[in-house]
């Protein structure tokens, strides 16, 4: 006797609908979107000083916003022109430095909110949702930013937009 029912009931299993989030493109230096809808180069065709990156629309920086791009090792990979002004450091000097040399979590009690490192690493791996935490410039007290952190790329990285 067969272990299987005489008429196997085959059903087409519908995959769970994937939520496709709209993507925004922006320049890692000036923050502007490229002029072309499908740019032929990664270099920003407006300022020529940044590479075009992608993120979800809700996380995209507004034009002229201060933001940083970090990798999974929490190293700085890019800084917008506004972030360079805000944090008083040139991108050419900041790349490959640890983010904590420029920014630290501003929470008085560690553990009360997600740590900057955890959120950045998750975002840089591409599996984080957009998260907002408080940060302050390293070695500076009394100045706070809200940092909106989300995945960006390519290649995979974390976008940290300062407000």
């Amino acid at each position, binding site marked *: 006797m067969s272990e299987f029912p005489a008429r196997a009931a085959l059903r087409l299993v519908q995959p769970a609908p994937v939520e496709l989030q709209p993507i925004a493109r922006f320049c890692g230096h000036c923050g502007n979107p490229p002029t072309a809808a499908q740019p032929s180069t990664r270099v920003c065709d407006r300022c020529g*000083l940044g*590479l075009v990156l992608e993120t979800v629309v809700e996380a995209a920086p507004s034009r002229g916003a201060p933001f940083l*791009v970090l990798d999974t090792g929490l190293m700085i990979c890019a800084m917008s022109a506004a972030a360079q002004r805000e944090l008083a450091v040139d991108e050419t000097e*900041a790349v490959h430095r640890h983010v904590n040399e420029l920014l630290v979590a501003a929470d008085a009690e560690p553990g009360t909110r997600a740590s900057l490192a955890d959120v950045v690493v998750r975002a840089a791996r591409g599996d984080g949702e957009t998260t907002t935490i408080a940060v302050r410039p390293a070695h500076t007290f009394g100045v706070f930013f809200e940092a909106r952190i989300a995945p960006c790329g390519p290649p995979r990285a974390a976008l940290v937009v300062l407000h």
Partner: protein
Amino acid sequence: MRFLKTSEAAALLNVSPNTLRAWERRFGYPKPQRSPGRHRLYTYGEIASLRDALHEGLSISSAVSRAREGLTADTHSLVGALTSFELERADVAMEAALALRSLERAVEEVLLPSMDEVAKRQGLDSAPWAFAAHWGVAWLRRAQRLAPPPTRPLSVVIGDATRDDLDPDAAQVRAFELFCVRAGARILSLSARGIQGMGEALAHRDPSIVVIAGNHLPDDDVARWAYNVRLAAGPLPIALFRRGHQPPRVRTTGAQVLPTGALAAQQRLLELVEEFRAAPAAYVDPRDTASDLLPRVARNGGQSSA
């Protein structure tokens, strides 16, 4: 070595020529050299490595930094080869350097710094330095032999005041000679020790300028040699190429001090010859005698007396 014009380099990177020039100002990279007509010339390897780095990068700064790291890797491998006494590996390291740069830049950015590094790490009395010094000087001499024939009416007589190949100035002097030859000059390199037979040596050379290169010989010897060159070849500008000297406080007569880098010195040399041709009296005083010209040549090498 394959060179690209600005438009070609820009096309390879898929950017405009203006963007490429903006990167040169902002990041100091890519760093072109100039054609005889002063046009920018980029090495293919440098542009190709930047293109790859841009493809994988998150910013121009990080891409430039990555492309530069690729370039410094050549110095590490050459230093490694020299300190392990591996001739073939040293040659291969220079081949790799030449794939990314012009010969001038490969010498200035890889060969000479690697030799300096060996000298600094191991000391000038060490076996690795002896090995590195002989290899470096031989490499530069070979490159000079392979250089194209002279293309300009420029004849340079060099008074070599270095001790021998182990003198840390020797490779700099050979590099300077090589750059002059590659700029189309005819070079006659003589020991600044000897004045015997100098007339014959200079008879068919019609020198445009005399360069005293190196710092080992006593100033009086060098001065005597320079004076004898002038006696044999007529009024000529005299230039000094020595390491560790500051830019010149120019005098109307006596020696001009060339910049310390071999390539910068070669470029200044070409300018000096042009300046001399335009106004010889400003460079050579026909009343100079051995007794007053020559010690001045020597003194001007360092702290020029006004």
